[in-house]
Structures are given as C-alpha cells and as structure tokens.
C-alpha cells in the first residue's frame, strides 16, 4: 500500500538524519508563502521575526542542514497560524473553534472544519480579553527580540537568534507552545500547511468519518525498532519526571 510505504520511508528518514530528501516544491512554497497572502495582525516585519524565531524552535531544512527532508515551522507556515489566532476576531464567526463533524481528509465529502463555530456572548467576552492580552505580548515580544538582536532579529545570525530567543523569558515559552500548535493542529487554523507537521510524526490526524478498522486497532503494525541514541536514552532516563508532567496534564482532563 502506498500509504504504508510512505510511512515506512518517513520512519526510515527519521532514523537516518543524513538521508537528504526534500519534498518537491517545499522550499519554493516556503519562500513564496509570505507574499501570497497578506497577514491580518502582523506587519511584514513582525511576521518575519515570528517566522524566523519559530523556525529556530522547530527547524526545517533551511534552518538546520541535518533536518534535510524534514519540514519545520517555516514549511508548516506556523506564522500564519499565529496570525490567524491573533486576528481571530477579524472574522465572523471568530476563528477560535473549527467546526465539525469532519474534514474531507479521511473520507468526508466536505470539509466542515473550514467553517468556525460562533461563540456565545459569554465565550466571546473571555476570548476577546485573552486575545487582546496575546496581541500585547506579541507586539512587545517582537520588539524585545529585535532590540536584543541589535535591531533586526530576522537578520541576525543563527547563533544570535538562538541566544536571543533563549533569553526571551515567558515570550519564548508562549511562542514555542504556539509553534507546536501551529505545527500539529488541523490545517484549518492556518498552520500545518500541506500536513507537513503530521507527516513528520507519521500521524494521520483527524480520522473521521473513516475511522480505523479492527485490524488497524488491534494488530501490531510490525516491528519498528527505534535506534537507542542519546535522545532516546535521555527520555527513558527522565521518564519519571515526564510521567509526572503527563499525569499533571491529564488531571485537568489532558
């Protein structure tokens, strides 16, 4: 099955960093994306700062040569995801909750997720406040990154970008969390362009209305050993603290 062989290939690529492979058109798309569609919250400069900063966090082939064949935040258009969030109320209904019951990616005849669910006045008041707070945080955070990088974060060296980002305090964490969301959420929120985030992690994403067969649920996908490198060893050595963190998230209902 083509699905399976692609999956196998991605796994193989994941375990062999020196396999240089880039899906056709990815670079061109990444470079062309900013001009194609104007941003709604960011100006061009701000968008550039966020694009470069999130690309340091989740690097793609243009950001880290060892990630050849592995798209990152830049290719997933994470900056678009963050712009959609910050400009959620430029649309009616606001782009907070994509609708359902499914997209057209797994057998659905229509992408219901392209529409958004209207908020109640009670919900809207809270979301407006939350997004207003994020807008301030982003304006200030971008200005602070620029200032710390000597005026233009996007034009700084990779090393300078990393150290500036590392010292960016709470904004660093908010940006990383938003980069993760933009990389891995359903593409209707503006990120995960061409599903590159999901392909990176061998994940099919939303599965309705097809779902999974009994065999897909109940049987092994086959042996697929992971190379026990230093990162694998680190996770296993730190499983106790990871377990506490996972449990802490789950206690709130995941």
């Amino acid at each position: 099955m083509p699905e399976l062989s692609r999956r196998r290939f991605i796994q193989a690529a994941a375990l062999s960093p020196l396999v240089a492979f880039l899906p056709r058109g990815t670079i061109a798309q990444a470079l062309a994306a900013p001009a194609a569609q104007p941003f709604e919250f960011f100006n061009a400069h701000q968008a550039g700062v966020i694009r470069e900063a999130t690309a340091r966090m989740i690097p793609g082939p243009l950001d880290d040569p060892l990630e050849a064949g592995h798209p990152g935040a830049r290719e997933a258009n994470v900056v678009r995801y963050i712009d959609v969030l910050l400009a959620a109320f430029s649309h009616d209904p606001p782009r907070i909750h994509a609708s359902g019951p499914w997209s057209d990616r797994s057998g659905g005849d229509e992408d219901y997720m392209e529409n958004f669910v209207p908020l109640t006045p009670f919900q809207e008041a809270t979301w407006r406040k939350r997004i207003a707070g994020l807008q301030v945080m982003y304006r200030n955070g971008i200005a602070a990154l620029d200032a710390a990088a000597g005026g233009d974060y996007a034009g700084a060296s990779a090393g300078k970008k990393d150290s500036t980002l590392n010292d960016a305090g709470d904004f660093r964490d908010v940006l990383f969390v938003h980069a993760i969301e933009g990389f891995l959420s359903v593409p209707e929120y503006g990120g995960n362009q061409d599903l590159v985030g999901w392909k990176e992690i061998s994940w099919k994403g939303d599965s309705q209305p097809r779902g999974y067969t009994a065999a897909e649920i109940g049987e092994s996908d086959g042996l697929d050993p992971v190379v026990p490198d230093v990162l694998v060893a680190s996770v296993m050595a730190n499983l106790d603290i990871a377990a506490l963190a996972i449990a802490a998230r789950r206690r709130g209902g995941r």
Partner: protein
Amino acid sequence: MAAKAIVIGSGPGGSTSAMVLAEAGFDVVILEKGRNYFRDLTSPTPKTVFSNDELKSNVRAFEDPDTDAEPRTYRADASETNPFVGNVNHIPATVGGGAVHWDAKTPRLWDIDFKKLSMLGPVDGADVRDWPFSYADIAPYYDEIERLIGVQGDIHQLPDVTLQHAPRTHQLPMPPGPPQYSSLIAAQGARLLGLQPAPTPMAINSERYDGRPACNNCGFCSHYGCPTHARIGALAPLRRALLAGATLKPNTFVYKIEHNGSRATGVSYVDSTGKRHTESADVVVLAANAIESIRLALMSGVPDPNHQIGRYLFFHWFTAGFAVFLRERMHAYRGRSTTHHVDDFANPDFPGAKEFAAANGLPYIRGGVLELGGTQDPIAEALIYQGTIMPVISSNRPFGRPFKQLMRASLLRDRFFGLEMIGEDLAQATNMVDLDTSVKDARGFPVARITYSPHKHEITAQTFYIPLITALLKAAGADASAAVPEMSSDRFPIAAGNVPGGAHIMGGMRMGADPKTSVTDAHGRLHALSNVMVSDASVFVTSGAHNPTLTLMATALRNARALAGSTSRPRVLGRKVTQDEELPATGVSASTRAGAGLVATAAGLAATLKRKARTSD
C-alpha cells in the same frame, strides 16, 4: 394542569430525571448553563460540530467551561490562605454535560460500596456510611440504564471477583468492540502477574443500536465530543425527555433556588442575553454536577442547620503508569481510549492488601479499577518535550532539532501507553465545597472553593499498588516504565500537581436518613426542601472504586421514579414514549435492536454515517 418540574443541568443526571418526569406527565423545563452544540435533539443522531481536533478540544476548551470565565479555587486545607485559582476538576458544561466528552467506561459499583460500613466497618478519621439502598436494590436500574445508553461488553468475560461483588442477571446489550493493541499488550502483562484482565463495559456502540451507528474507533474519544453518536451518553434520556414534551433552554445560568419554608417555589436565572428571570415550579431537580449543585445550594441559602451541605466531597484518587516500547509502535491513538481493564486492585481482599493495611494502621485498603492502554495526542506529547524534557537535556537551547527528533521517535505517544487506576476516596468532613469569599465568575457570582486532602487510606493504597502497576508494565515488555500519583496534596508531596483532578466529582450532598449526617434523604431529596431532588453524583455516600457515571444515572433513575410515583396526578401526553416501546429487552438479537418507530427522522443521516464508515474501511 400538570405539575411543573424545573431541571437544572442537562447532563446524565438531569437528563435521566427529565426523562422520567416528562414521561410521567410532568411539565418539564431543563435549564442548561452551557451552550447547545447539537441540532435536532429528538433525532437519535443529532447534527454536531464535534470533531477530531486536538487544538479545539484540549487546548481551547470547546467542551469544557472556560476556566478564565468560570474558575474555581482550591486549597489543601482550611489553613491555606492563598488558594489556587483556575481549573479544579471542571467537567463539560454544555447540553449533555459531562457525558459529552466522557470516556464512557461503565463498570458498576460493588455490593461493598453500597453497604460499606456494614460490610467493611469504620475507618478512623473517615466517615464511612452505608447508602440508603443495596446493590440488589439498584441492580435493575443499572440494567435499564445499560440498555438506554447502549453498553457493549460481555458478562461472561468479567472476572469472578467482579461478578461476585456486582452480580449480573442479564447479558449486556452489545458484544465488545474490537480490542485495542495497547490494551492487549497490557492485558498480557496483567495475566503474567496472575491478574484477570477483561474487556471493559462501555457505553459505546459496537454495532448499530437504537438508531445510532457502530463506533468506527476514530481514536478521539476521551475528552472529545463524539462526531457520530456511537457514544450517546446523556443525549439518550434527553431525547426521550424532549419527545415526551420537555423544553430545553441552553445558555441559562440558574443562580438561585427560590424557597419558602420547607418547599422550593422556583428558580431564578440569567438568560443568554444577561437578563434575569424567576420561574416558579412544583419540583426542582438539581443536577448541575457535584461541585456546581453545591455552589447553587449555597448561593440559594438552602437551610443547613447541621452544616452538612458541601461536606464529604470525593475525588477518585488516580494513579497512572506509563510505559515506553522501543521495538514497535503501540498506536494507542486508534480506538476507544482503552478497551480492557483489571478489577483485582478494587478488591480489599487482594493478596497482601489486608496485611499492608494492618501494617499501616488501617482495617483495609482498596485501590480501584485499572484501565489498560491509551496514550496522549501529538500536541500534548510535544508540550511534554517542550516543557519538561528539553529543559533537562538542553538547558541553554531547549528547542531546535532535538525537539523534532523526539517527536519523530515518539517515545511518549506512539511507542507508549498508559494505565490508570481509579482509586477509592474515603469520606472526610473536611473535604468540601463552599463559596469562595473573594473570587467571582464572569457573571459576578461567587465561585466554588474546594478544600481537599486525601485520607491516609488513599495514600496507603496508592503506595501498595504503585509497584504492582510498574510490575505489570514490565511484564508487558516495557523498555521503560514509571508509575506516579496523578493526584496530589501537601500530604503527598511527590505527586504530579498541586490540584486534584480526574473529573470524577462526587459527594457533598450525600443521601441518608439522618439530617445530622446527610443532606438528602433516601431518595435524593433535600432534607431542608422536600420538593428539591438532587440528581447528580453529589448524593453519593461512598466514592466506589469505579467510574461513577453509570451509578449516577441508575441512582437518578431510581430516585426520579420514586418522585414521579409519589407526586400527584401526572398528565400523560400523547407523545409519551415508554421504555418498552423504545428499547429492546436485554439480550435480544441485533435485528430488533434498531429501535424502531422513533428513529425515522434521523434515519437518513444515520444511514449516511454508517455507509461512509463501511465503504471507506
């Protein structure tokens, strides 16, 4: 004229009560504070906007209350002056309530849960009591709820210890659905330890049932609204209530039960536009969930001369085990969260448990049902790397390529599964809900303040079972494993967080004959206001060691039947729907299970759903 009943809350308890009262001829109005994400609720498969969307459900609280707008506060004990403010065991507040995104596991409580004091005796420092009814009394109501919401499972595969404590006279309406690989691997480990894993009874269709499709195991189950209604929950009784003439008003926040003497006269509420109204009623059903119902009772000034309202709150004492597998992917993201469980740890006579209890000065200890399998979704996994792993392995640059390598290897999602033990929580007067003195919600009403710490029993039981959970994971072939408390308090400092969670909230208005030690009577009615029936888990007298919703619904059904029988002159409506007409007898063949008659309006959509599921296999 028919008696008027106002039901506060459209979740499992409220909907069950509304069904009984509406079908008995009451004029029923259901007031739901949350919004309605469904269209055409009289159909077996209403249109929904739920979806397989992790961001929407788990990051942006689509189903849950927004905890910025509706926070709660938490403190470990009354001496704490700076309580936590935020999410304290919030569960969905939309039409359908907690059953909108529940995991739908439906074990029954055991005989010893209902007669805890009589059968197991007192525990120092706890206030163990009997329920006003026994397992045998509630068993027929369990049967009825299992048919109503459609439970899959096989009583012949349930272990002896389960059947001994929760005997069954009927097979479940549907056979178990396909097993999940991670659950099978865990079950294998359990068997190697001499435990008895079994397919978990769950209220999810394994075949077409009552006009709703079989589950297609999409993998977005616990904590996601169901896009297909294979997991129907409270919507089954809600539909029957509406078909019997009940009215549902969403976006309606009740802030006061009006009362005069020993009777409630009605309720006051804020509507979706912010306008306040008062509506009179002959009967009020309080079913806003254990914490919110208590909050409302306290905001209403329900007479409470013995200071019982809000006390003896329970949270199940969750323990989690996690395993990593290097040889293959567990793909636990496909399926129904988990498909198997082990019941041995709920048994106070489990080998060694009595001795361990005695060594710790306790008469017995009890863990709880252990769910096998299940994982987290990609954003949740990524946040663990971002927030916990990367800072440890790369503190100067906690981002970049290693993060992506971690995501590709997926040791904490795809090569991973978890176990979760739902441990019993003993009753303590100091574990309680009251009104916070300073924090208000976005509507301007005081929020619930939770004061909670575990009893020595919970901590001792957890200490006893954590090594066994780890042993099970090792026996299952895990390359790395860890078992940790999911609950925490100052009394148990190694735990995961500072705020109790798990979304199993019970107690606070427990049933009993004596107003000095209980809030509601033997049929869930307030001692202080005889025409107010409490129909959520706040009436629980013990927490049990199993998922609570089935018991909540069975108890609501029992108590509502008693109310319907005792209150005068119900009017029978033309559209009355009886149990016999709509639901099949237990154990009948699939062909008669389709739920004839009432499903016509939705047959089209349901058929489409089914076809899609089939043709795309």
